[in-house]
C-alpha cells in the first residue's frame, strides 16, 4: 500500500496548470464557478425560483414574500451547508492522504464517520426523537472519539504512527464500531426508521441555526489546514525526509489530526457521513495543481464545495418530488469516477 502511495506521489509531479503564475487566477476562476453553482442550486427546488428573485432575496430581502422566505430559511442554509461540508471533507481528505501517504485515505478511514454514526444512533436509541442539533453534538463527540481511538491505537507499539498502521487501525475500528451500530439498529426498529436517512448523509432540513452551530468548527479547521499545508507537503514526501528537513513530525501529525477531526467531524455532525468527496477531490486537484499542499488545500476546498453542491442539486431533481440523500448521490457519481481513475492511472 505504501509502495503504491510512493509511486502515485511521484507520478503526480506532472500537472495541468504547468505554470505557477496560472495558479492564483485559476483559483479565482474556480471560486466564480462555485458561486454560480450556488445560485443555480438556490433556484431549484419544489418550486423553481427565477435567478432575479434569488438575487433580490439575497440582497434586498422582503419578509412578506413567500419565495424570499423560502430562500432565506430553507434553501440558503442548505446550500451553504453543502458548500462548507464539501470544502471540509475535501480538505480533510487531502490532508489525510498527505499524512498517511495512502491515496485511498478519506474521512471514512480514520474512524470519524463510524464513530459519529454510532454516537448518533446511540443518542436516538436513548433519547427517542432528538432535534438535529443533538445529532450534531453527538456526531461531533463520536467523530472525535473515533479518530482519537484510531490515532492512539495506530501510534501504539513499535515505530509509532506509521501510515500503514493508521490506515489499518482505521479500517478495523470502523468495522468494529459499525458492528455495535448494527446491533442497535437491528434490535430497535424505531431507531432504525429515524436514523436511516441521516446515516446516508443528507442536507435536507438543515437550518441556519444548525449551520451556525457547526460552521465555526469547520472554518477553524480550514484555517488550520491552510496554516499547516506547507508541513503536510514535506511530510507527504516521507517521515525520514521531513525529519531530515528539520520538521518535528510528531507535532505536525497531531496538529493535522486535530484539523482533520474539526473538518470531518464538523461535516459529519452537520450532514451525516458523506463518502467519496474526500477521496476523489484531492486526486483531481493534485492532477491539476501538483503536490504542493499550499495550493492543494484551497483548490480542494473549492472543488469540494462545487462537487457537493452539484451532487445535492442532482439528488433533489433526479427523483422529484422525492429526494435522494446527497451521500448516495456522491457515491453514484464518485464510484464510476474512481474506477476510471484506477484504470487510467494505475499502470501496474
Amino acid at each position, binding site marked *: 500500500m505504501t509502495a503504491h502511495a510512493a509511486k502515485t506521489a511521484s507520478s503526480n509531479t506532472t500537472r495541468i496548470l504547468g505554470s505557477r503564475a496560472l495558479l492564483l487566477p485559476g483559483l479565482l476562476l474556480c471560486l466564480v464557478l462555485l458561486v454560480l453553482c450556488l445560485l443555480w442550486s438556490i433556484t431549484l427546488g419544489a418550486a423553481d425560483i427565477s435567478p432575479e428573485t434569488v438575487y433580490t432575496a439575497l440582497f434586498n430581502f422582503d419578509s412578506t414574500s413567500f419565495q424570499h422566505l423560502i430562500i432565506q430559511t430553507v434553501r440558503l442554509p442548505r446550500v451553504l451547508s453543502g458548500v462548507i461540508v464539501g470544502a471540509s471533507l475535501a480538505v480533510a481528505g487531502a490532508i489525510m492522504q498527505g499524512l498517511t501517504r495512502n491515496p485511498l485515505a478519506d474521512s471514512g478511514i480514520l474512524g470519524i464517520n463510524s464513530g459519529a454514526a454510532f454516537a448518533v444512533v446511540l443518542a436516538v436509541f436513548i433519547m427517542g426523537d432528538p432535534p438535529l442539533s443533538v445529532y450534531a453534538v453527538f456526531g461531533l463527540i463520536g467523530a472525535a472519539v473515533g479518530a482519537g481511538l484510531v490515532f492512539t491505537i495506530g501510534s501504539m507499539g513499535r515505530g509509532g504512527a506509521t501510515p500503514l498502521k493508521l490506515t489499518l487501525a482505521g479500517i478495523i475500528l470502523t468495522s468494529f464500531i459499525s458492528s455495535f451500530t448494527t446491533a442497535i439498529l437491528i434490535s430497535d426498529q424505531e431507531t432504525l426508521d429515524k436514523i*436511516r436517512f441521516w446515516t446516508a448523509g443528507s442536507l435536507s432540513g438543515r437550518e441556519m441555526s444548525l449551520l451556525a452551530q457547526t460552521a465555526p468548527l469547520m472554518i477553524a479547521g480550514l484555517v488550520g489546514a491552510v496554516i499547516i499545508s506547507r508541513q503536510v507537503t514535506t511530510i507527504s514526501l516521507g517521515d525520514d525526509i521531513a525529519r531530515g528537513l528539520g520538521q518535528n513530525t510528531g507535532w505536525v501529525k497531531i496538529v493535522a489530526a486535530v484539523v482533520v477531526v474539526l473538518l470531518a467531524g464538523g461535516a459529519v455532525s452537520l450532514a451525516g457521513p458523506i463518502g467519496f468527496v474526500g477521496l476523489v477531490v484531492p486526486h483531481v486537484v493534485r492532477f491539476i495543481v501538483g503536490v504542493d499542499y499550499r495550493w492543494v488545500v484551497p483548490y480542494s476546498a473549492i472543488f469540494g464545495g462545487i462537487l457537493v453542491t452539484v451532487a445535492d442539486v442532482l439528488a433533489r431533481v433526479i427523483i422529484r418530488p422525492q429526494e435522494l440523500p446527497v451521500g448516495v448521490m456522491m457515491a453514484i457519481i464518485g464510484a464510476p469516477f474512481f474506477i476510471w481513475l484506477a484504470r487510467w492511472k494505475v499502470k501496474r
Partner: protein
Amino acid sequence: MTAHDPSKPSWITLRAQRPPFSYRIDRRVPLVALAIIAFTLVVLVLSISFGEYDISPLEVVRTILNVNQDHPDYANYALVVHTFRLPRIVLAFLVGAALATSGAIMQGVTRNPLADPFLLGVSAGAGLTAVAVIVWFKTLPVSVLPWAAFGGAIIASILIYVLAWKQGSSTPIRLILIGVALQAGIAAITTVMLLFGDIQAVQQAYVWLTGSVYGRNWEHVQALGGWLLIFMPVALLSARSLNVLGLGDETAKGLGMRVEPQRILLLLISAALAAGAVAVSGTIGFVGLVAPHVTRRLVGPSHEGLLPVSALFGGALVVLSDLIGRWVISPSELPVGIVTAMIGAPYFLFLLVRSRHG
C-alpha cells in the same frame, strides 16, 4: 521447532502410487488440524445443549449417536437436536470454512494480507440483490433469496475483474482499488432501497447484511455442502500455484506459470466459495480476514496446509461466534456476523499494535 534439524524438510508428503498422487503439507498441519477439530466438536456439543430447551451435553452426544432411544425425552431431544440446532451449527461450520478458504486464496492472489473474500465484490453484489428481494419483491418465495444473493455475488465479482482488466492483465493493486470503488457504488444503490423500503423489511435486510444462520435447515446444509465438495478440492489442488504467485508475477512467469489464467481461476474459486457461503447466511465479515492470519501463524505460509487448516479454523470460529451470539443476550440473539466482528476486530488491532514492521 528449535530441535528440528534444518537440513530436513519441514514438511510431510502424502503419496499414492495409483493413481499417481503426491501432496506436500507443513509438518505442523496434522496436529493443528486435530486440535481445531476437537475444539469444534466440544463447542458443537455445548452449542447444541444450550438454548431455550436445555439438553445436557451428555444427552446431546447420545442423541447424535442415536443410543438413547429409551430415554423418556428422546422424541423431544431428537427433534430439537436434529431438526433445529444441528443443521444450523453444521451450516455455521461450512459457512466459516468457505469464507476462510476464500479469504486465504484472496490474500494469496492479491499478495495483500488485508484482502478478504468480499474484496471481490461478493458482499456488495449479494447485498444488492438480496436486499432487493427482501425489500422490493416481498411476494417472492423465501427460497429465491439464496439464489438471488448468489447471482449478485458472482456478477459483481466478474464485473470487478473485467473492470480491472487492462492490457492483458489485472494487477492486484488495480483489483483492490476497483473493488473498493465498485462496492461503494453498489452499496449506495442498496442504501436507496433501505431508505425507501418498508421498515419491517428493512430491518430484516439489515440482519441479512450482517450475516446470520438463524433458522437454517438441512436443505441449506446440503446445498452449501455440495458446493464445497466441488470447489474445496479444486482449491486445495491449486494451492501450490498460490505459493508461486506469492513470489511475484515475474518469478511466477519464470517458473512457467501462465499467471493470468491461473489468477482468474483462483479468483473464480475464491468468489464461488464466498458466494456459496453468502447465499445461505448473508455477509458474515471478518472470518475470511482473521482465519487465514491465525492459521499462517500456526502452520506457516505454504498454502497446501494453509487452505485446509484455515477452513477448519474459520468453521470453528463461526460455530463459536454463533454460540456466543445466542448466549450473550439470550433469550434473544445477536446475528453471528456481529459476533465475528466483535471477536475479529480486537484480535486484529492486537496484531497491529504488536507488529514489528509497522
